[in-house]
């Protein structure tokens, strides 16, 4: 797959993917990166992921707290806010419309 194109696509939807993961419950950066990779979105570097988290938090779509786990340093745990849940629902609808339109345009050329 064209890596440049893939990363451009991802840039447009990474915040929504993160919101969707956090809709299932609290999590922290590294675990979110793992979940995104497990979902087939490829390796998300810290340098890409954390700025997205900071922006979502700045805009009030997620909130955070510091927590200590079994081992290692304190981690910053994020959770979705009601505002974030609303945004996710709205964007999910818009995305499915958008993706369907692109899908229709590309339908004819698929082998």
């Amino acid at each position: 797959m064209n890596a440049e194109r893939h990363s451009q696509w991802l840039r447009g939807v990474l915040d929504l993917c993160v919101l969707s993961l956090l809709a299932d419950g609290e999590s922290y950066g590294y675990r979110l990166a793992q979940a995104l990779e497990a979902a087939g979105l490829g390796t998300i570097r810290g340098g890409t992921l954390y700025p997205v988290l900071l922006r979502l938090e700045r805009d009030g779509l997620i909130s955070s707290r510091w927590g200590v786990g079994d081992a290692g340093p304190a981690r910053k745990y994020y959770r979705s806010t009601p505002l974030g849940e609303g945004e996710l629902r709205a964007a999910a609808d818009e995305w499915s419309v958008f993706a369907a339109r692109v899908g229709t345009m590309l339908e004819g050329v698929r082998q």
Partner: protein
Amino acid sequence: MIDDPDWLDVLAGELRLRGLPEDQVTRVLGETRAHLWDAGEDPARAFGTPSAYAAAVHESLGTPPIPARRKVVRAEAPRLQATGIGKRHGRHRLLHDVDLTVHAGEVAAIVGANGCGKSTFLRICAGVERAHAGRVVVRGSIGYCPQGGGTSDFLTPDEHFVLVGAGRGLGRDRSRGAGRALAEHLWWPRPAPIAAARLSGGTRQKLEVILTALGDPDVLLLDEPYQGFDRDSYMYFWDRVREWANEGRAIVVVTHLLDRLERADTVVDLTPSPHAAPGVRGRHHPKGTQPR
């Protein structure tokens, strides 16, 4: 190299260069370090160069798009207005002509050397001590956190929540729920059912802060409320103060720690000035002109 101290040091420098406040720098470093610890990755591989990552962080933390709230509340009458406050102890003039105005959504810091009257000024604002001159007008309910003495040795944290909550018109369950939620925000996840006498100094102090904030009073007066807090709790306390302000409360914090003044909208320095006439105090620094 997994935890490359040089890379993190350079990142810290780059973040400061871009004007990030120190608490933000600490948080970004903490999160970055945790990620590197979990991932076992080379920092440059995971985050790129320190300067590129610092630039991305700085951009992501930029001004939020909806800070219009302050303008709206500004139009309202101040929550707390103290004018010309004077206080004598015998012949000694402790406070002279001190002014303080705090609107909903604002944080004021009272600073100054030991013994300059910070706590006395707060007590006057709270209405528990009488001034010899001036007047205090408070619009709304007050939560006042004195330095110690606000908790009972024999009651558990939950019992404190319920007791104080009842005094502010909250039912048993709501009091307990609100108290525990506040505890979590102050880095005290599950208050154990033990008597307050057995709590550590810092934890007991958290209990004092929680009881002050219970029932959402309009004006919060906090007298050095973070004594005994560990570093994380201290950071969390100031986050919470900001949140309370954002929720529309007016907050006054007596503090001798100057590193958090950037969090305050107003700073009143009660330290006697060597150049001023004896007893002339209460210089008022609007945001932006405060001493560092």
